[in-house]
């Protein structure tokens, strides 16, 4: 049986761990607030972009539409753009995104399709490397990025488009975690190439007939790559908020578990201490009686 001193050391170390998890929880909570604000600030732009694109796209659909909108006409090669966090200690955040991507990939591969991976974030790369090492064609780490900017998303979008234009894939799907609330983050797959345009609502009345300057297809050609960057940017921001949300609840759990453990350990410690005192008393008394 462990000595009293060993037990004291263990309790102290559990307490130290609890302090760390508590601190991490509070840091995550304050970062979450900022991440959430950033995600909300980006929303108006993305919404307006969606509206403008669906307006123009419905006018420009049909033969001769840009490939980013119409697709290559094949769905043989898929690119999975998997966005995960750079760090762990966030519960199931990273692995749930990876799991979704892995399931989709295996399903497609069973159908004889080819799947390639483009990883954003170190954690996703590390997990996907185990199963799909040969299929990972690119890996972007955002570790050194302090504040996520639109430029980061633009860089990624430019790389994706360059590969698309080089004919490396037909369909691109974006994987990220949608931030629903602090306790609920939903791993999401969203097809970004070819773009899925929502049909304008039927009750919206007749669409406004716009004048275009320059021509529609020219605007569209410039707009589609931008929209890709916007979608990626939004995914990164949602991911960021989800990460801190997941980390916050994971650390909250860890703090509570540490508290339980400290209580149990203290109970055992006190029992052992009392048992030892009783034992010593018995020894003294029986020693005194013997004289």
């Amino acid at each position, binding site marked *: 049986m462990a000595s009293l001193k060993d037990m004291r050391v263990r309790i102290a170390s559990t307490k130290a761990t609890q302090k760390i998890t508590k601190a991490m929880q509070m840091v995550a909570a304050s970062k979450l607030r900022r991440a959430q604000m*950033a995600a909300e*600030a*980006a929303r*108006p*732009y*993305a919404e*307006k*972009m969606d509206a*403008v694109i669906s*307006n*123009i796209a419905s006018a420009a659909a049909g033969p001769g539409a840009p490939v980013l909108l119409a697709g290559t006409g094949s769905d043989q090669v898929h690119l999975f753009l998997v966005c995960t966090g750079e760090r762990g200690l966030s519960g199931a955040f990273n692995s749930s995104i990876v799991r979704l991507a892995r399931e989709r990939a295996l399903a497609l591969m069973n159908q004889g399709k080819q799947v390639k991976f483009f990883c954003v974030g170190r954690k996703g790369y590390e997990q996907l490397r185990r199963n799909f090492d040969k299929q990972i064609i690119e890996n972007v780490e955002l570790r050194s990025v302090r504040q996520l*900017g*639109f430029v980061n*998303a633009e860089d990624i979008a430019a790389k994706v488009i360059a590969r698309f234009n080089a004919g490396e894939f037909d369909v691109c799907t974006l994987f990220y975690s949608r931030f629903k609330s602090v306790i609920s983050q939903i791993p999401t797959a969203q097809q970004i190439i070819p773009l899925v345009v929502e049909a304008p609502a039927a009750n919206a009345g007749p669409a*406004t*007939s*716009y*004048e*275009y*300057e*320059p021509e529609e297809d*020219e*605007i569209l050609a*410039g*707009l589609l790559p*931008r929209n890709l*960057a*916007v979608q990626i*940017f939004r995914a990164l921001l949602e991911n960021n908020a989800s990460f801190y949300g997941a980390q916050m609840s994971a650390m909250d759990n860890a703090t509570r578990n540490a508290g339980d453990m400290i209580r149990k350990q203290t109970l055992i410690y006190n029992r052992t201490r009392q048992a030892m005192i009783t034992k010593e008393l018995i020894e003294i008394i029986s020693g005194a009686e013997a004289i």
Partner: protein
Amino acid sequence: MSIAMATFHFDLVSPEKLAFSGEVDQVDIPGVEGDFGVLAGHAPVVATIRPGILTVTAAGSQQKIVVLGGLAEVSDKGLTVLADVATALPELDVASFAETISSMEAKLPEKVGDELDRAIERLDHYKSIQHQISTTAMH
């Protein structure tokens, strides 16, 4: 002018934030095919924006905002500008803007064909912004 001008709603959004939102009298936009002014009741139009300075006139005062490309949409609901980057002129960091220009110049020799043309065009726009800033800053 004694007659109050009709106002319309104007939103300026960039990917990172909502830069401006409110009722305005007039907005002058640097379009790819030339500058144009928008007043209340303008015909619906979608236009691409070049990097330049956007002027907002509201309640008799003018506000200048630097936009680095984007898209403007006029509909019956008002004007929406989707700007790649939107910075109010007083907040613009002139030194870092000059740095951007010199780094763009440094990268020019790497580009070829269409990309070179586009880079030169973009650089010209940036330089004209810089020129306008330095001339307006005098008074």
